[in-house]
């Protein structure tokens, strides 16, 4: 069957059988379906929403938050075909080698495999997110018509590069549902159901296999899917919610024998105005403050700590963006004039810029999603997020900023002011990437992770998870390119399950 099927038209009590169930039609689910398209597998994709925003479907996402101020759970994601890519920013960058490493100074860090395991999938992922050629840290060469990166002195911070998703012409970024909807419809052995909410994953009595999925629509229809293999691709909050709520056979929830489902929730804090960066000669290439549009390639320069600096200083990853130009106060002017004076540098044309950032949070088991006492319109328990952000995360980021300042001074090209210090300072300028991660973390050892290195739920033969919920350590790169690469890798494992 092909085309979209409105689940509200499926008679209650219907039982459908298939080889592969993909639960969720966001970036992960769609990428997986496209990757499996050439195989002979029969597939069903179940998407909770329709083709556009619907407030009743969206309300299924609402929940509770406590602890460190964070976003409303229904405001930071979208529940219709394409998922949160319907309002993502398109910032893309592959994770670095160090992001995969277990670091003794970062508890709970490390993936069960090195970066080279997913590296072969970046090329295809890059094309799915429509970021143009895979350039990243060779950006300077591509953007040289717009100027050169700041000639920082040797040290622990370098000019790193992001690329941007771009759908067509000036339409950016790629909204997966809109962009790949027709491709999905054309996959001959795929049935895509819209308005189809999975409300429970039912295990066989021995708790070792998924037997069936319960599906409900907001119009009151209920039916069943019996897949040979299931992939959860509902986003990092909802993946955890479904596993926790499916507790009829495994009382603590599916895959939750080690009490890890929902723990280690993460996002990237993106506080504003973290520092003031002064360039003595006022010369700053435009690709620091704005996206450089070079044909199919959109580039933006940022500052990142090198892997070596991260190891030496025991700090997580971060990126610093250069934002708008700002005026210095009297003390700022005095500092710039005095320092430039002593260094023998002309600061006549100095300009100052506010910086923003994206920070990697250190994994924390108590930053956690649990089920609340409330239920949604379909009877599924709602989520409750307890957010925590240790002050050390901000202190680590300040170390990277200081190093950037040192390199500017040592190169005699500029200096920096660190604008935030106390916890209140940071809270006052806090924003979030909406990059949900970590809640079904990956580890070879079932005591340390919910899924194994193949993204299969430990102890369940035919249940897999796609998306950034499996990221055990997060890096500072935005997740989507990486989770798409991981979904493509997962497709190869899925294929192997059907010899």
């Amino acid at each position, binding site marked *: 069957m092909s085309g979209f099927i409105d689940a509200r038209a499926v008679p209650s009590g219907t039982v459908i059988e298939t080889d592969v169930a993909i639960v969720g039609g966001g970036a992960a689910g769609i990428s997986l379906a496209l990757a499996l398209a050439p195989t002979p597998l029969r597939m069903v994709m179940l998407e909770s929403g329709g083709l556009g925003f619907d407030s009743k479907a969206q309300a299924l996402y609402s929940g509770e938050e406590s602890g460190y101020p964070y976003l409303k759970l229904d405001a930071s994601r979208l529940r219709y075909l394409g998922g949160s890519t319907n309002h993502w920013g398109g910032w893309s960058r592959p994770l670095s080698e160090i992001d995969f490493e277990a670091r003794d100074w970062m508890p709970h860090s490390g993936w069960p495999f090195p970066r080279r395991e997913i590296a072969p999938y970046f090329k295809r992922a890059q094309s799915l997110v429509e970021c143009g050629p895979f350039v990243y840290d060779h950006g300077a060469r591509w953007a040289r018509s717009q100027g050169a990166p700041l000639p920082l*002195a040797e040290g622990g911070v370098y000019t790193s590069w992001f690329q941007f998703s771009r759908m067509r012409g000036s339409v950016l970024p790629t909204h997966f549902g809109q962009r790949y909807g027709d491709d999905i419809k054309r996959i001959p052995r795929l049935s895509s159901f819209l308005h189809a909410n999975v409300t429970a994953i039912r295990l066989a009595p021995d708790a070792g296999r998924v037997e069936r999925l319960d599906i409900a629509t907001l119009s009151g229809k209920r039916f069943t899917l019996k897949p040979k293999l299931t992939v959860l691709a509902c986003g990092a909050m909802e993946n955890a919610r479904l596993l926790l709520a499916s507790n009829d056979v495994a009382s603590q929830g599916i895959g939750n024998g080690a009490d890890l489902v929902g723990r280690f929730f993460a996002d990237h804090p993106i506080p504003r105005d973290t*520092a*003031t960066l002064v360039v003595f000669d*006022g010369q700053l290439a435009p690709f620091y403050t704005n996206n450089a549009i070079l044909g199919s390639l959109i580039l933006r320069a940022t500052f990142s700590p090198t892997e070596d600096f991260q190891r030496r200083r025991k700090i997580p990853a971060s990126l610093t963006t250069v934002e708008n130009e700002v*005026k*210095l106060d*009297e*003390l*700022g*002017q*005095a*500092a*710039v*004039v*005095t*320092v*430039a*004076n*002593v*260094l*023998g*540098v*002309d*600061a*006549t*044309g*100095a*300009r100052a810029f506010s910086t923003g950032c994206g920070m990697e949070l250190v994994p924390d088991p108590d930053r956690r999603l649990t089920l609340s006492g409330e239920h949604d319109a379909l009877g599924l328990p709602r989520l409750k997020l307890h957010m925590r952000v240790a002050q050390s995360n901000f202190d680590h980021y300040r*170390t990277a900023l*200081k*190093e950037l*300042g*040192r390199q500017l*001074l*040592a190169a005699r090209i500029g*200096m*920096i*002011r*660190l*604008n935030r*210090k106390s916890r209140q300072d940071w809270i006052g300028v806090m924003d979030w990437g909406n990059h949900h991660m970590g809640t079904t973390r990956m580890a070879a050892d079932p005591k340390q992770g919910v899924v194994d290195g193949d993204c299969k739920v430990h102890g369940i033969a035919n249940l897999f998870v796609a998306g950034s919920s499996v990221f055990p350590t997060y890096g500072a790169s935005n997740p989507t390119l990486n989770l798409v690469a991981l979904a493509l890798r997962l497709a190869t494992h899925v294929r192997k399950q059907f010899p």
Partner: protein
Amino acid sequence: MSPPPKLSRRTLTLGAMAAAVAAFAGGLYELPKLLRRHAHGEHAALINLLADPDAAAMVGRAAKSDIAEESAAADLKTRLKGRALADLAREDDADLDGLVEVEGWMVPLAIAELCVLAAQAM
């Protein structure tokens, strides 16, 4: 109280000084000042080599809570030994530990110390 550092015109190596300090684009900073004030006291010679001792004094007032005047004078004396302040700044900015945070501004220690002396002298 330690004796004042030995100062000479070379100390600051401010050859490029005249050009160095001026107005930010858009007239943010009104320099060179027409009515330039001069430092007095034991560190005056060093401070007066700065194009704008008042600016340094302002930075110095912000740095005072972290750097004591006595230790600033003693440290500069020990380190200068006929060398240029710019050389000290270069030593300082070779390592993160050589920088101090003055109300958020990351400044080489030697410069911050000079600013503290300026705050005292102006």
